[in-house]
């Protein structure tokens, strides 16, 4: 893995600091890839127009210019404040966001009364703006360590907030303010990742090496573990009250992964899996909403046999299947049959139908690349907080993609969640842009600030 090479470079440089000019910055690569990403998005937009009305959409140039300007501004911010950052993050984010806009615009054509693309464009702009702000303002990711407890309080506040608002579609996860719908849990993801990373970085030794031994498991002391379990229970409890199981699953996964990475104790995985299985069985059989989801997952076509017509999951599977190897072509599928949430939770089905397995594989590879680069940045860092933060952010992306993509393709029970960058949903797009900003910041630190890191090097 190329990560090893970077780690070696980092170790060497710890002994004999290299002049900054020697580190390849790769900003040119990033710019070239950005041009490609914007180009592919515009091509997709043009293709939809050609396929649907045999004409290039009149605002294709404007769409391309808008996306191009956003990408360029983000690139300039990176060039200015994070010159050593990994050159893949930004182009992948732009491509996925651009592709998401094309897919949403394409679905808008089927629902003339409900246009989602303009709002998504506004949110994407806001996301890029926050990205730029984060890259410019946050000069060093370790600054975040100072806000460990502020993060957790803010996260819990955000998670609790929607309980005060009326439920939307059976879930209390939105708050509506001045015409905007916001999903606070999306932002809480980042804050919780920051908290977990900071707390675990500070207490990892205690967690790993102290505590009582019970049979073969070495349990950490309650004093250390107490707060983290309490907070985790609280967040998961809130989520179950709000019936947002996807996010609850995500938090649990994030918690287990970070605990395992921080302590290096396989026992955590075992405990995590055990808790997950017990929790899944308990919630799956007790909670009617979840119980029905599990039933649909096990028998996606039962409703058809019962004469009630296809469920959304069945429609989603039909859409994927209709795509086949090459897809029907952008604009030429019938994924709108999925109905409600076709542009958000089920957006991947449209990609699957219209781009086929080939296009879907490309999208999965883009996510895999984004996640792998995140982990790689973590590997290259020398401070425990940075490593845990990068691991946490990459895990959030990976788990999120798995939970929703697996849900709409029948691999696991369906839980509502947004496909990062692709799906309609303002909070999600903004959050993912911030995640990418943090990953860029972390990867920049990994490659350009070896001297500072050397001083607080961590034992392997």
């Amino acid at each position, binding site marked *: *893995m190329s990560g090893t090479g970077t*780690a070696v470079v980092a170790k060497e440089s710890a002994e004999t600091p290299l002049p900054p000019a020697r580190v390849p910055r790769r900003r040119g690569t990033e710019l070239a890839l950005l041009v490609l990403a914007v180009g592919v998005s515009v091509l997709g937009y043009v293709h939809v127009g050609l396929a649907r009305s045999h004409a290039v959409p009149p605002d294709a140039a404007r769409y391309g210019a808008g996306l191009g300007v956003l990408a360029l501004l983000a690139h300039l911010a990176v060039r200015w404040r994070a010159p050593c950052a990994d050159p893949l993050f930004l182009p992948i984010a732009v491509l996925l966001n651009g592709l998401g806009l094309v897919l949403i615009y394409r679905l808008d054509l089927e629902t003339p009364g409900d246009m989602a693309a303009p709002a998504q464009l506004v949110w994407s702009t806001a996301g890029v703006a926050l990205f730029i702000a984060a890259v410019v303002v946050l000069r060093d990711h370790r600054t975040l360590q100072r806000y460990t407890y502020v993060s957790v309080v803010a996260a819990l506040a955000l998670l609790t907030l929607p309980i005060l608002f009326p439920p939307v579609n059976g879930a209390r996860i939105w708050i509506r303010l001045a015409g905007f719908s916001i999903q606070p849990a999306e932002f809480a993801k980042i804050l919780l990742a920051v908290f977990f990373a900071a707390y675990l970085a500070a207490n990892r030794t205690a967690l790993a090496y102290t505590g009582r031994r019970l049979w073969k498991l070495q349990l950490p002391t309650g004093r250390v573990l107490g707060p983290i379990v309490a907070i985790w229970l609280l967040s998961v409890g809130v989520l179950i009250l709000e019936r947002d199981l996807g996010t609850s699953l995500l938090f649990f996964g994030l918690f287990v*992964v970070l605990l*395992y*990475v*921080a302590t*290096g104790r396989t026992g955590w995985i075992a405990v995590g899996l055990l808790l997950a299985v017990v929790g899944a069985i308990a919630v799956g059989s007790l909670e009617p909403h979840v119980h029905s989801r599990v039933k649909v997952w096990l028998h996606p*076509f039962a409703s*058809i046999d019962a004469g009630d*017509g*296809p469920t959304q999951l*069945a429609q989603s*599977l*039909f859409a*994927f*299947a*209709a*795509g*086949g*190897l*090459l897809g*029907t*072509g952008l604009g*030429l599928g*019938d994924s709108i*049959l999925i109905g409600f949430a076709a542009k958000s939770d089920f957006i991947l089905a449209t990609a*699957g139908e219209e781009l*086929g*397995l080939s296009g*879907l*594989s490309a999208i*999965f590879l883009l*996510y*895999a690349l984004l*996640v*792998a680069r995140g*982990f*790689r940045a*973590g*590997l290259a860092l020398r401070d*425990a907080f940075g*490593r845990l933060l990068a*691991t946490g952010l*990459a*895990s959030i992306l*990976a*788990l999120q*993609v*798995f939970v929703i*993509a*697996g849900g709409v*393709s*029948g*691999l696991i029970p369906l839980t509502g969640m947004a496909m990062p960058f692709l799906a309609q949903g303002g909070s999600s797009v903004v959050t993912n842009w911030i995640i990418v900003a943090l990953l860029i910041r972390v990867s920049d630190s990994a490659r350009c600030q070896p001297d500072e890191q050397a001083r607080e090097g*961590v034992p*392997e």
Partner: protein
Amino acid sequence: MIRHIRLAAAFSLLLMLALLVNAARIQVFQSEEYDNNPANRRVAIARYAQPRGDILVDGKPVTGSRDTGQQLRHERTYENGPLYAPVTGHASQTYGTTFLEDAEDAALSGTDPMFRPFPAWNALTRSEPPGGQVHTTIEPSVQQAAYNALRDKPGAVAALDPATGRVLALVSTPSYDPELLSGTGSTATRNWKRLNTAASKPMLNRALRQTYPPGSAFKVVTAAAALESGVVKDIDAPTKSPDPYTLPGTSTKLTNAVAGCADASLRYAVVWSCNTALANLGDQVGLRGMVRVAERFGFNDSGLTIPSPVSRSNFDTDMDRAQLALSSIGQYDTTATPLQMAMVSAAVANGGDLKVPYLVDRVTTRHGAIVSTRHPRSLDRPFGQRTAQLLREMMIGAVEEGTGENAAIPGAIVGGKTGTAQHGIANSGLPYAWFVSWAQPQHGARPAVAVAVVVEDAAADREDISGGGSAAPIARAVMEAALNAEP
């Protein structure tokens, strides 16, 4: 820590891999199963995405397509729907397809592989070839004449070109406009319910799908069997049949509507429709002989398609002598579709060479390039030339001097046979009036048309109802139209 981050990364990538494998499972390995799920609307959406190909009569389309702008975009329309309904059937988005719309669906919807230049064409162009054109053998003037002649009477007409088997007319009355069922939604549902519950059964294709007891019209088949089996060698020799005739093994006496049937010759019996003589001859031919000849005419064949499916006409294969005697005059369990009786007439007209009836001449692409063409084929040879000649003579006699004189056409040779069948418990139902006939131009080398007409007669006076009275004039109108249409 490095090792654990690596493991976490490997785990994340494993999740991505699982997604990819699952996507391949759905999109490639099991896609067909999902695609063919009846609840998957894509099949229907693709089916109606482009205009359906047309069914043509004499080169002019009798169908059309309307762009509704709905999810199922194109709806079927019909020109002269009630007239051609027995030919076209309906193509409904709600209730499926029937008759030619069904039998030629692959051609009309463009899904027939014949329409693709090469197998992977659709996948590469991402488009379906436009629907093809189905050219029928129907002769519009004959069809119209039959429809006009039946008017408001429930009944059916089937007309064939005896020399080729081309179906010249298929009419069923009362009829309906198939366009009423084309779309989806409450209008189509309401129409469907109304048409299905109507007492007059307008959606019943009487020419192909309804069987009637053929009555005396079946005597042509019995006469053929008597001649072929050698029971009758001279059609002018007495048949030694008593009047009344006691059904073998019973005390039931069979009588006649006309005089002179005692010991009549076969010619007299056919011309004047003597029940006693032909029941007796059927009994003498025997079950096996009668069944063999009837089946060679097409009876007991449940697989006939033209390509619309034709109902099975029945001649029982297991009967006692009394039942056989009754079956031989088209009673008991003997039933026939109008098309079957037109085939009987066509076999006589064409010298014993029975052609397979067919309704579709050729299928072309939207632009007229021929995809497939149909050529006449022989179904069977139920009897030889000599028998054919004698049967022709007797049928001509029935028209010139016997029960069928209402069918005579000046300037043409016409042969025919009447039939009146009673049905229902104790014959309480309304009788069916039959006329089967054929016509040949006076100086023509071959017959122009073979016709079978059935009228479910609602006339009050049962005695007066005979094939000669209500059905023969209809047959004449159809034959005249066919003779005039001859090039």
